[in-house]
C-alpha cells in the first residue's frame, strides 16, 4: 500500500497547492451550477437578462462585491495565520483541502442535518462517519453509534445527558415495573452497571413498557425523580463541564475535581480514595470523566487505571458511567492502529513507527502509560472526539461515539413536525441535543475520511509529525542554555514532557526569585507573540498562554516554579504561574529545515523580545 503523502493534503503555508485547490473548486462550483440548471430545464429562468441590466440590479451586485471585499480585507488584516509554522498556539492549524472543498461545495446545497428530508445525503454521511469514528475508537461496529456535533462542548453535554438518563432509569423501572428489579434497594438501583441498565431498556422496549417507564424517569419528571449524584472530573478539565452540570440540572456543587499529578494527569489514587469516601457516605456517582489531551497541557489521563478502578468498585457495589473527553487527543489513536484497525502491540507500534518513518526512535514515544491509555479507550461508555482539532477539519465539528446504541432510547425525542417515526430513514434529530445543524460540516469530515484512513498510514502520519516536533521542542527547551541579553540572563524550561503535542513553557530571569516578576515576564512575552501587540500578520511568532493556579491545580504547579529557584513561599503568596502554550499541530514544522534551525530561530526571536522587555524596564 502506497503511503499517503501528507504534503498533498493541505493547501500549504505558502499556498503551495493553490493550483489543485482552485482547479477542484472551479470544477465543483461549475458542477453545482449545472446541477441547478438541469433541474427541470424546461422551467423558465426566474431572473432574465433584462432584469440583470437594470440599474438597481447592478447596484445591488456592486454592493455585494464591496461587502465581500470588505469581509476579505478585514479577514486579511486581523485573522490568525494558523497555517504558518510560526503559529504554535491554540489547537488550530491548516485544514485539509478535502475537508475545505467538501464543506464549500456542500454549503451550496445547504443541507440541514436535523431531519432526513432536509439532508438525505449528509444525514447518511453523518451516520457513516459516526460509525467510522466509533469503530476507530475501538467500539463494536454492531453495537455502537456516533454522530457529529457542533463541537466538543455539545458532545460532552450529550455524554452527561446520556449518563444522567441512564443512571435514572432503574429508579423509574422500580416505580413502574418493580418485579423486574425485585430485591434491589435504591442504592443498588443507582449502582447498576451500564450494561445491566441497558438490558432493562431493551426489555422495556420489547415489552412495550418503555414509554410508561420513561414517563417516570428524569427526562420526563426532571430531577424530582432522581438525585443526580456526583460527577468526577480531573482538575485539568475543560470549562464545558462546569456548564454541562449547570445545564443538565446536576449542579456545580456536584462536580468534584480530582487533583492531577506532576504530569497533569488525573491522580487515580485520589480518584479511588474519593470513590471509596462517596460510597461510605452513600453518595452515588453519576459519572467519571477521563481526558485524552487536556486543553492546557495536552496530558493523557490513565484511562486504563480508571477502567480498573471502575471494575474494582463494581465488585463492591458502586458503578459509574465513564466518559472520555478525547476532544483534543482522540485522533492520536490513529497512530496506534494497524492498517486492519487492530490496535498495535507495543512491539508492532515501535516497528511501524520506524518502518513508516513516523517518529524518531530516540524520543521513546509513547510512554507505557500513554500507550495503555489509548488501548483502554473502548472501555468507556462514550467518547468525545473533535474533528475540528486533530482531525484537521474546519470549524465547527465535534463528535461523540457511544459504546452501546441502546442508550440512545433514553434521550430520544420525537417531534412529529420534524420527522416521521415510522419512516425507515435515520432519525438523527431524535437522538442528538442540537436541532438544525449544517450538513456541510459533516460533508467536510466525510470527505476527509474518504482520503485519509484512521490508522497509522493515514491520520497517524499527520499526528505523528506534531507529536515528534513537540517532543523535540520539549527536549530542546530542557537542554537550552541561558539567554544572555547583556545585563540579564534568562532560562526557559518546559512544564512537562508532552503526552501528545502540547508544550507549555516559561521563562525566568536567573536570580530573580519573585514569582510575580516571572509571571509578568511571560505575560509580556505572550503579548508580544499575540494579537495584543502590533499586527498579527507581521509577527515573527505567535503562541497562546495559560495560567495554572492553586485553586484549580493545588500545589502541583509549584513543582515547576521551584525549578527556577523560586521558593515555595512565593507560590503560596502568588498562587499561580503564567506559562506559554504551544500546540504543535502544524504538519510542516521541519519541512525543508532541520529542527535545530527552527529552534535556533525560535530562541533568537525570544532573545530579541527579552532584550526589548529588559530595555523597556530600564
Amino acid at each position, binding site marked *: 500500500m502506497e503511503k499517503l503523502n501528507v504534503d498533498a493534503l493541505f493547501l500549504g503555508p505558502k499556498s503551495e497547492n493553490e493550483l489543485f485547490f482552485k482547479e477542484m473548486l472551479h470544477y465543483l462550483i461549475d458542477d453545482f451550477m449545472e446541477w441547478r440548471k438541469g433541474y427541470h430545464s424546461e422551467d423558465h429562468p426566474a431572473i432574465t437578462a433584462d432584469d440583470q441590466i437594470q440599474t438597481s440590479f447592478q447596484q445591488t*451586485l*456592486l454592493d455585494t462585491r*464591496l461587502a465581500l*471585499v470588505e469581509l*476579505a*480585507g478585514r*479577514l486579511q*488584516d486581523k485573522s490568525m495565520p494558523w497555517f504558518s509554522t510560526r503559529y504554535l498556539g491554540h489547537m488550530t492549524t491548516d485544514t485539509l483541502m478535502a475537508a475545505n472543498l467538501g464543506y464549500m461545495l456542500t454549503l451550496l446545497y445547504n443541507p440541514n442535518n436535523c431531519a432526513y428530508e432536509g439532508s438525505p445525503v449528509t444525514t447518511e454521511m453523518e451516520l457513516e462517519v459516526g460509525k467510522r469514528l466509533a469503530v476507530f475508537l475501538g467500539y463494536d461496529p454492531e453495537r455502537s453509534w456516533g454522530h457529529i456535533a457542533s463541537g466538543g462542548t455539545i458532545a460532552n453535554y450529550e455524554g452527561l445527558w446520556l449518563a444522567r438518563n441512564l443512571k435514572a432509569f432503574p429508579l423509574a423501572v422500580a416505580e413502574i415495573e418493580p418485579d423486574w428489579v425485585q430485591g434491589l434497594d435504591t442504592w443498588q438501583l443507582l449502582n447498576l452497571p451500564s450494561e445491566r441498565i441497558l438490558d432493562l431498556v431493551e426489555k422495556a422496549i420489547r415489552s412495550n413498557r418503555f414509554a410508561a417507564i420513561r414517563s417516570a424517569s428524569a427526562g420526563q419528571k426532571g430531577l424530582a425523580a432522581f438525585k443526580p449524584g456526583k460527577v468526577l472530573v480531573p482538575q485539568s478539565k475543560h470549562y464545558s463541564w462546569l456548564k454541562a452540570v449547570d445545564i443538565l440540572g446536576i449542579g456545580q456543587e456536584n462536580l468534584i475535581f480530582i487533583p492531577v499529578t506532576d504530569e497533569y494527569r488525573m491522580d487515580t489514587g485520589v480518584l479511588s480514595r474519593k470513590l471509596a469516601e462517596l460510597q461510605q457516605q452513600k453518595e452515588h456517582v453519576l459519572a467519571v470523566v477521563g481526558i485524552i489531551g487536556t486543553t492546557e497541557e495536552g496530558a493523557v489521563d490513565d484511562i486504563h487505571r480508571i477502567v480498573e478502578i471502575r471494575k474494582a468498585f463494581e465488585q463492591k457495589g458502586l458503578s459509574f458511567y465513564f466518559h472520555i473527553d478525547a476532544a483534543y487527543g482522540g485522533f492520536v489513536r490513529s497512530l496506534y492502529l494497524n492498517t486492519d484497525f487492530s490496535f498495535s502491540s507495543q512491539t508492532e507500534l515501535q516497528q511501524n513507527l520506524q518502518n513508516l518513518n513516523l517518529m524518531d526512535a530516540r524520543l521513546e514515544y509513547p510512554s507505557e502509560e500513554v500507550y495503555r491509555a489509548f488501548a483502554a479507550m473502548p472501555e468507556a461508555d462514550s467518547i468525545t472526539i473533535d474533528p475540528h482539532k486533530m482531525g484537521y477539519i474546519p470549524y465547527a465539528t465535534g463528535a461523540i461515539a457511544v459504546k452501546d446504541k441502546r442508550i440512545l432510547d433514553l434521550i430520544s425525542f420525537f417531534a412529529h413536525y420534524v420527522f416521521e417515526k415510522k419512516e425507515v430513514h435515520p432519525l438523527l434529530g431524535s437522538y442528538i441535543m442540537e436541532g438544525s445543524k449544517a450538513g456541510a460540516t459533516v460533508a467536510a469530515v466525510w470527505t476527509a475520511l474518504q482520503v485519509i484512513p484512521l490508522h497509522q498510514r493515514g491520520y497517524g502520519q499527520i499526528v505523528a509529525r506534531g507529536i515528534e516536533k513537540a517532543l523535540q521542542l520539549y527536549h530542546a527547551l530542557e537542554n537550552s542554555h541561558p539567554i544572555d541579553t547583556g545585563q540579564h540572563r534568562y532560562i526557559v524550561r518546559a512544564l512537562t514532557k508532552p503526552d501528545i503535542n502540547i508544550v507549555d513553557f516559561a521563562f525566568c530571569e536567573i536570580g530573580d526569585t519573585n514569582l510575580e516578576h516571572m509571571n509578568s515576564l511571560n505575560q509580556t512575552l505572550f503579548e508580544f507573540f499575540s494579537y495584543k501587540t502590533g499586527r498579527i500578520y507581521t509577527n515573527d511568532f505567535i503562541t497562546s498562554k495559560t495560567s495554572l493556579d492553586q485553586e484549580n491545580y493545588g500545589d502541583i504547579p509549584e513543582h515547576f516554579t521551584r525549578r527556577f529557584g523560586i521558593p515555595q513561599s512565593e507560590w503560596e503568596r502568588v498562587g499561580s504561574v503564567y506559562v506559554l502554550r504551544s500546540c504543535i499541530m502544524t504538519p510542516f514544522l521541519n519541512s525543508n529545515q532541520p529542527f535545530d534551525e527552527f529552534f535556533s530561530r525560535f530562541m533568537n526571536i525570544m532573545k530579541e523580545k527579552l532584550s526589548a522587555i529588559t530595555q523597556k524596564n530600564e
Partner: protein
Amino acid sequence: MVITTKTIGDVEVVALGGRIDAVTSYDLDTHLKQLLADGHTKMVADMAGVHYISSSGLRVLLGVYKECQKVAQGELKLAAVQPEVAQILDVTGFSKLLKSYETVETAIENF
C-alpha cells in the same frame, strides 16, 4: 512598498510602488490618513508601480475614497492602473467606484 508624495496645485499625488497587501496596506493606510488629517481631500494614487492589490489594500482605498467624498470636490482618483490591478478592480466592483485615468496629469485635469 514605496510611497512618495508630491503636491501639484491643490492635489496630492501619491506614487505607489510594489504590492499593496496585508503587509503593506497598513503603511498605505497610515500615509493616506495623515494626508486626510492635514486637510488634503483631492488625491491621485499613481498606480504605475503597483502590480498587485489585495482586499486589504482595497479596503484602505475605499476608506480614503469615502472620507474624501465627504468634502465638496474631494475625491480619490487612480492613475496608470496596470492591467493585473485593473482586472481586480473590475471583479471587485471598484472600477465602478474609483475613477481611473491613463496618466496622473489627466487625473488632475479632471478634478
